[in-house]
């Protein structure tokens, strides 16, 4: 599907309509949103306590499985519905120091400061701009013909699988920019400095899940250790597949630096819209994705509390239809299959396609 291009006047009107939509929701934020995020935080804490208790005090495989599921669910809820959204500043208006993007720290090896740099700034400002948005392929995968092919990409189905299983580590080291170091553009001293928050955060996470809790379980330690490994991996896989469906689906567009130079607010909105894709499902599914099922709305309004995306979606879709922009939404399986298609197809060399020239 080709990119839709709008004239300067259309882009301005388009931007104004979306700004207005944002202002309407922002003016309506209140106790409902505050109660939701507190409830989710509490639910994840209760689930974590239950999961850890089942792993620690149980003996049989059934309680082990239940414990793993409860702990994985706790981590998914905490990372996706609370952590990711709080770190975007979605709840800063509450003025609650414990739910503030400046201070919140989440249950994952990625340090919140690193995350805010790579995700909030780099990924959200430069969504799907090749060379600026490192989240497009994570420096490992070739997902569009515009990306240059290297022999290593032949193995990308494997690297894609490894990234899925170890996803928390992938995002944790992203801000160190190891690529620059290997190209000789970073000194070892600078590397050490950049890696410090990562080493500090990840060592504490490892200690917590793989030393402290197993030790507290005495003879039950192997059960706890394995359970914690399993819960972390389940969380990794789930977050990875959901996030991959956000920007790498068949109809998600990529952009070049030249295309986005000097773009207006309307053009920025249009790029966010065409570079993102939604997943359709039940309310519970939306919740367990941290509302990243609504990646389009999230990218238009990253600082609006995520549960609001559900009510924003029909309005955004109506604006899309009005301006003839494709609204990329489909079920999880069809979207994920189209992502996998890119992973396998672009593992092979293909000619780079010249970027589409703007009409206006």
């Amino acid at each position, binding site marked *: 599907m080709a990119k839709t291009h709008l004239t300067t006047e259309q882009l301005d009107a388009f931007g104004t309509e979306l700004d207005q939509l944002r*202002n309407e929701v*922002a003016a309506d*934020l*209140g*106790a*409902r*949103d*505050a*109660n939701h995020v507190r409830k989710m*935080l*509490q639910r994840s*804490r209760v689930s*974590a306590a239950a999961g850890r208790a089942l792993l620690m005090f149980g003996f049989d495989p059934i309680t082990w499985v239940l414990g793993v599921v409860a702990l994985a669910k706790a981590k998914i809820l905490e990372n996706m519905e609370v952590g990711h959204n709080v770190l*975007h*500043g979605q709840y*800063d*208006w*509450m*003025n*609650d*120091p*414990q739910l*503030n*993007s*400046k201070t919140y720290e989440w249950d994952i090896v990625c340090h919140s400061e690193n995350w*805010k*740099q790579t995700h*909030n*700034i780099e990924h*959200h*400002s430069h969504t799907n701009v090749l060379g600026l948005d490192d989240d497009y392929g994570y420096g490992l995968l070739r997902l569009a013909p515009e990306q240059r092919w290297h022999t290593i990409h032949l193995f990308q189905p494997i690297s894609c699988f490894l990234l899925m299983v170890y996803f928390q580590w992938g995002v944790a080291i992203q801000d160190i920019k190891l690529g620059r170091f290997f190209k000789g553009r970073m000194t070892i001293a600078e590397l050490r400095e950049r890696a410090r928050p990562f080493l500090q955060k990840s060592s*504490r996470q490892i*200690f*917590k899940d793989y030393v*402290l809790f197993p030790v507290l379980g005495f003879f039950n330690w192997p059960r706890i250790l394995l359970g914690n490994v399993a819960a972390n991996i389940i969380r990794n896989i789930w977050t990875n597949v959901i996030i991959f469906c956000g920007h790498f689906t068949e109809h998600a567009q990529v952009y070049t630096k030249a295309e986005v130079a000097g773009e207006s*607010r309307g053009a920025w909105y249009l790029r966010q819209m065409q570079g993102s894709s939604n997943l359709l499902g039940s309310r519970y599914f939306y919740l367990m994705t941290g509302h990243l099922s609504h990646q389009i709305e999230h990218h238009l309004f*990253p*600082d609006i509390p995520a549960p609001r995306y559900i009510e924003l979606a029909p309005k955004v879709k109506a604006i899309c239809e009005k301006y003839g922009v494709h609204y990329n939404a489909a079920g999880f399986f069809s979207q994920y299959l189209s992502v996998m298609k890119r992973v396998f197809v672009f593992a092979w060399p293909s000619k780079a396609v010249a970027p589409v020239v703007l009409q206006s």
Partner: protein
Amino acid sequence: MSTAKLTNLFQSSWLRPFNDPALIQGTARALNPLHKATGIGARVVEVITETTECKTFVLQTNRRWPGKRWPGHLAGQHTLLTVTINGRQLSRTFSISSPSSTNGRIAITVKRARSNAKRISVSNWMFEHLAVGAVVQLSAPAGDFSLKNQTEAKLLLLSAGSGITPVMAILRELVESPGADVAVTFVHICRSESDFIFASELRAVAARWPALRLVVYFSGTQGRFVPARLAELVPELSQHEVYLCGPNAFANAAYGALRDAGVAHAIHQESFGGFTAATDTADGTSSEHVLTLENNKQSFTISTQTNLLDALETAGLNPAFGCRIGICKTCQCVKRSGVVKNLRTGEISDAPNELIQLCISAPRSPLELAI
């Protein structure tokens, strides 16, 4: 092992989640709402209607949750009260109108502000919605406006409007302290009898306590109060130590009049602060305000036409920033005081300690930022 070392060990980040303050406080709060995460929890135990515009809230502060107990206050001090209004934690400073006490029970007296459409007024919300049983959060008491420095035998308590609240605390303290060898003149200025806060209590005290002379001036019927007239109302004015609280314009005029009348003793003054409409510049016209940074007390002049991020960078600072278009919140900081306008939404932030994004905020008054 020393206590400090033990404390460090218990607070070590290696022991997460067992010593995670957010988790512990969250659990404690689930058990009892008085266990506030930050600040001191307090429950409203009584609401007294003082006038049609004014209510007193009697608060019982938390006594059980260790480390977050009310430390006791001096008469005349104030506290930063935080309430949750429609999901938002909003704070405002209130003078404590009760004298010092040991049972952790305090009173604050709140006057309804003139309504300002769209913006949430903490005072108005409290007046309309805060009821017995509700839980609020307090800071530890603070302020130099208190009786602790009293040296003179003759005291003048001078207040106007809602400025009576800290002065009343001082009077109540004087009445309660036995054998106090003082002569107190209380001059209060308000619009009319129906605006006279604590009227019946003040008259009752004046009737049974000969040391108190009460002078009430109703500006609604007697005309605007001229501070120079204080000398007529208070014999031997120059011999008094003064406690003064009221609207800024009144307080400044009164201070000048007192010094002119030859008051050589201490004049204790409490200011409720707040910016008047005069400091708010209409959009389009450019003017300048002073910006002060909390950490190094550095201050410089900035234009109302530029955003704070640009202004700080022009001044040679390097505040953290990200997208510069108001989406990533990297440049967000706490505004200690002053008014800013959000250039993206047009919202005005005028309450103290609100979070603002530097890249989309323009000054509308002198500012202090927690940078």
